[in-house]
């Protein structure tokens, strides 16, 4: 079963997907494999493994700081792929997608990236600063499928276009702005998610600004799953036992998402 079928099957079964974003190498590269396991234990359907970058222009202060800590600790794309490969060998039922900015991927080169990603079982690639019009910059045999993004200001015609470009799912950016926990999301978010789902015909996972399990009942019914990044990084920051902290952080989201309305 490929990743597109995997997502489609979970959506068809009525399950809301829970997708944590983990910055590779945060707090140190030695933590990455055990944190992937902790998130799988906590109920993740799949995991986004983030590649740190010196200039993360779509990220707010929390993920900027996590990226910097990881880079200083020696995190690289190569090491992230090795961690993903180790995890994949141990737990192939929980897919890992890579999320990162264009430049580190280009620096490795599309062909070596495709080869290593395929060997590591990488399910998909999310590149927030690469519009589908430019996906040819990462085209190579064996490259995992890329994921399109949409934002609250994306026009309807563009949503249709994104739907026809396709992908295993669509990443709906819930806010105009950068990543980071927000106390409250705008009331218009569920309508945006529903519109995005209707116009693209793709499974829609929502991210940016989701920080508390209490937000789940408002958001989950309007989409197929939620992506949680900055709030997880915050929970790991300074934790005596990051592995336990990751699991403890995720479980309440799983519980909230499995609750039938």
């Amino acid at each position, binding site marked *: 079963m490929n990743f597109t079928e995997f997502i489609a099957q979970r959506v068809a079964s009525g399950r809301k997907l829970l997708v944590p974003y983990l910055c590779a190498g945060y707090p140190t590269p030695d933590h990455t494999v055990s944190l992937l396991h902790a998130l799988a234990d906590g109920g993740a359907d799949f995991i986004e493994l983030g590649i740190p970058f010196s200039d*993360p*222009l*779509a990220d707010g202060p929390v993920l900027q700081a996590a990226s*910097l800590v990881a880079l200083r600790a020696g995190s690289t794309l190569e090491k992230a792929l090795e961690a993903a490969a180790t995890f994949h060998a141990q737990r192939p039922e929980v897919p890992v997608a890579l999320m990162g900015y*264009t430049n580190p991927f280009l620096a490795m080169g599309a062909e070596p990236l495709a080869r290593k990603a395929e060997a590591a079982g990488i399910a998909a690639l999310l590149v927030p*600063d690469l*519009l589908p019009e430019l996906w040819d910059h990462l085209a190579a045999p064996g490259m995992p499928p890329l994921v399109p993004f949409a934002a609250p200001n994306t026009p309807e015609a563009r949503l249709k276009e994104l739907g026809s470009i396709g992908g295993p799912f669509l990443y709906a950016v819930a806010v105009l702005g950068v990543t980071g926990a927000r106390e409250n999301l705008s009331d218009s978010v569920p309508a945006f998610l529903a519109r995005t789902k209707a116009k693209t015909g793709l499974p829609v996972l929502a991210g940016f600004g989701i920080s508390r399990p209490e937000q789940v009942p408002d958001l989950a019914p309007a989409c197929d799953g939620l992506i949680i990044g900055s709030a997880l990084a915050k929970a790991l920051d300074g934790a005596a036992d990051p592995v336990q902290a990751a699991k403890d952080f995720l479980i309440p989201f799983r519980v909230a998402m499995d609750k039938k309305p």
Partner: protein
Amino acid sequence: MTRPLTQPDDRGFFGAFGGRFVPETLKPALDELSVAYAVAKDDPSFQAEFAEALATYSCHPTPLYHAERLSEHVGVPVYLKREDLNHLGAHKVNNALGQIILARRMGKKRIIAETGAGQHGVATAAVAARFGLECMVHMGEEDIRRQKLNVRRMELMGATVKPALSGSRTLKDATNEAIRDWVANVETTFYLIGSVVGPHPYPSMVRDFQSCIGREALAQMQERTGGLPTYGVACVGGGSNAMGLFHPLSAHPEIELIGIEAAGEGVDTERHAATLTKGFPGVLHGAMSYLLQDAEGQVTEAHSISAGLDYPGIGPEHAHFHTTGRARYESATDAEAINAFETLSCLEGIIPAFESSHALAWVLRNAGKLKGPVLLCLSGRGDKDMEEYLLHKEGK
């Protein structure tokens, strides 16, 4: 025989460079800007308003000055395009005027900009005051500390200066913060970029607004000498004064175009800003271009005594000119720039900006070997650099 001028393709690329490497959130804003600019570009009333502002708010056409003693010193005639005489003392105001007139036509109420040393921030604050628009300038915390006077000038003209606290806290990070601000406020805000960098259509739009430099200089050269210069020379950080000069000149294949990057303490040290000399292609701030980066694709910090050249990227059209060989890019060190700063001051009574001093350094280095007249863009005046100059001298 003149050659056609380069234009970006449908996706905003000059050859392999440029494009729009941005989040989906910015796509509608860039589409809106592209359409608005395309309409304005062909609208005589826009062009008339821009020309009037260049002439009366600044002082275009700026003079072309035959630097006689410098010419004697280097063995060929040297003509300085006096962009240092612009309002606020540098070429930056040309672009700021063009973009703010466009922003107003688009109905935008809030202007944001990034700035390094503060030249572009001051130009943006000035034109925002002139047109009565709200203005926020993102500036690295480190640069705010080093450039207190420019911060006060911006504030005096009503702008808010927002410290960028991420990364190295300099221009690169101020640009990241400006882009983040734009993403969050995209529906009301106009991002007034200061150089020929960023996602399409900024590189070609900023170039067009700066092209008065080259167009005026060509006409002035022909009127003065009856011919063309052998060389067109300018300093290159992001590259806006250089592209403003080069683009109109590039129609004439016989003119050699030479861009001078900042070599800082030397291109074989780690402290330089020589992007084309030492970098390789990559993506930063929305465009594919040459970039100072490590083997992992992490952007490295640039260094130059000239804050205006202290940037790890370069405009994509320069990367294209470099690749096709239409322009040649060399570099000058901090020490060479200081020497040129002193030389022009002594020989001509003109104190050049540290940035422009890099271009002058190339001319001085090649004294006695030059084959014909030099047209050099004196992009800014050096008053702003006096403090740094004195510190440098004391440090010796």
